[in-house]
């Protein structure tokens, strides 16, 4: 089985999993925060935030990638600061691939969490307040457990999206084997050279298997969590 994929292909699979996992876990707190702000708070600029969150869903991925390069690239406004102050470089690194994947998957994550937040009855949160729970305690003990199925669904959706991200990734961090070459970039690269169809085909199978597995897992986890929270 291990021989079935070549070392280059293995590297792409492993890198894809790592990029997607880091992208999902790192963006989850922000996803919950953004969903909470959009669902519950009324503040000036709410529509602007909503638009910003959804922009990657609508823009051509290559545009998102280019914008990332402009801002997070070495000479970019944020990228230069990160490099100067913290020595963090995102452009042409796997961390940059994770950032691109996270941003592309963000709208899907936020939508799923926001939907489940809107289904939580604020009257339950009021009841918790009269029982002495502070805002933070209410969120931790009432809101979060009740939206857990939505959070899990959103995270898995984001993971699947991050796994398949191509356009923004290749624009922002290019296609460097072992560094930024995820499964989709690898498939693209193999298809560019004569005789690469077999390698590309194997990665396509891996892609399909991973996507199916993520889908089944999300169904199963969502159902298990829903049972646990009694929703």
């Amino acid at each position, binding site marked *: 089985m291990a021989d079935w994929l070549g070392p280059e292909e293995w590297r792409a699979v492993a890198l894809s999993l790592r990029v997607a996992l880091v992208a999902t876990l790192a963006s989850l707190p922000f996803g919950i925060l953004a969903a909470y702000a959009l669902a519950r708070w009324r503040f000036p600029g709410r529509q602007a935030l909503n638009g910003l969150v959804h922009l990657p869903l609508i823009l051509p991925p290559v545009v998102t990638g280019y914008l990332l390069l402009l801002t997070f690239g070495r000479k970019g406004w944020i990228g230069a600061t990160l490099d100067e102050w913290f020595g963090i470089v995102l452009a042409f690194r796997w961390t940059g691939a994770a950032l691109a994947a996270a941003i592309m998957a963000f709208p899907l994550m936020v939508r799923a969490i926001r939907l489940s937040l809107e289904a939580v009855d604020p009257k339950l949160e009021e009841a918790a307040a*009269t029982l*002495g729970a502070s805002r933070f305690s209410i969120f931790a003990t009432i809101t979060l457990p009740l939206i857990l199925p939505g959070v899990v669904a959103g995270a898995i959706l984001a993971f699947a999206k991050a796994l398949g991200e191509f356009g923004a990734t290749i624009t922002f961090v290019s296609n460097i084997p072992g560094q930024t070459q995820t499964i989709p970039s690898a498939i693209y690269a193999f298809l560019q050279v004569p005789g690469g169809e077999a390698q590309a085909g194997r990665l396509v199978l891996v892609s399909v298997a991973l996507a199916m597995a993520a889908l089944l897992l999300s169904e199963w986890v969502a159902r298990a969590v829903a049972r646990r929270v009694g929703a």
Partner: protein
Amino acid sequence: MSLSVRLAHSFAGFALDLAFEAPAGVTALFGRSGSGKTTIVNAVAGLLRPNAGRIEAEGVTLFDSETGLFVPPHRRRIGYVFQEARLFPHLSVRANLLYGRRFAPRGEAGAEFARIVDLLGVGALLSRRPGGLSGGERSRVALGRAILSKPRLLLMDEPLAALDEARKAEIMPYLERLRDEIRLPILYVSHSAAEIARLATTVVMIEGGRVAAAGPAVEMMADPAAAPAFGLREAGALLPARVEAQEADGLTRLASRAGPLWLPRIEAPPGATLRVRILAQDVMLALGRPEAVSALNILPAKVAEIRIGEGPGALVRLDAGGEALLARVTRRSAAALGLEPGREVFAVIKAVSVAPGAVGAG
């Protein structure tokens, strides 16, 4: 041991402007739907910030628009029993009951878990989820949850409104026990005269966002002027009485300042003090002591006040040995008997007209 409320608040098309005091015991906010009762309770709980006013509970100021003080709901320590229970669906009954405990100040004496579970009869439900509970069970768990958060005051917003008559009758004794055993001041919202007659020590009548009348429940229920608000068929005085004996033919003999009273069997030991609600429409008046009638209860009384209604009826407040009774008769009868304040009469009450639900713990 009291709550003092003064508030002004306006919504689109509705303005609230009132002040009242709630002494120890159960203070009922009575009024029809839309009169502003829930707004008042929400303001006391801190779920709503009124435009102006001042709220003080047990000597602690919770809200004062002049100084800009507004204590957030979770720091007020005011238990709130909502109309729709609002149990947390993802927690077991036990976890629901204990939810407020972790936020309550440590070391402070509060109601004991085992005692409340026992008092409310929810012991068999502890490991269950709220989803599978009946309406009456939910109400009891919601009550227990509020009490166990060690509140200094309890708010109840029509906690029985969502229940059918049988469930109401099931919960009522628990509420009475709470009132008498836990001794928490309770602000109780209701539009049911029957509930108020059973529970209230003080009644604050709300009409269109204002206090129409307020006073001790026994006085309010016997006030002919307040009767139209309670509903003429629902109006009736509260008679404090003590159980004397259970008699062999199924009747219970009670003693009251107005005289002896026989009622269909009441499940209470001799010596127990009760509050009997005698509906005004069930009281017949006679000038002489009636002979050879089936009615068992004939109480000598003096007419204290007559209020002629707009229709054919009149409401008569009687003084029977220092207790008040309310009788509803026709204007024609009032004229025929020559009823006027000071007139000696006999109040005739059929034993069976007093329903079991009309007898509450005193």
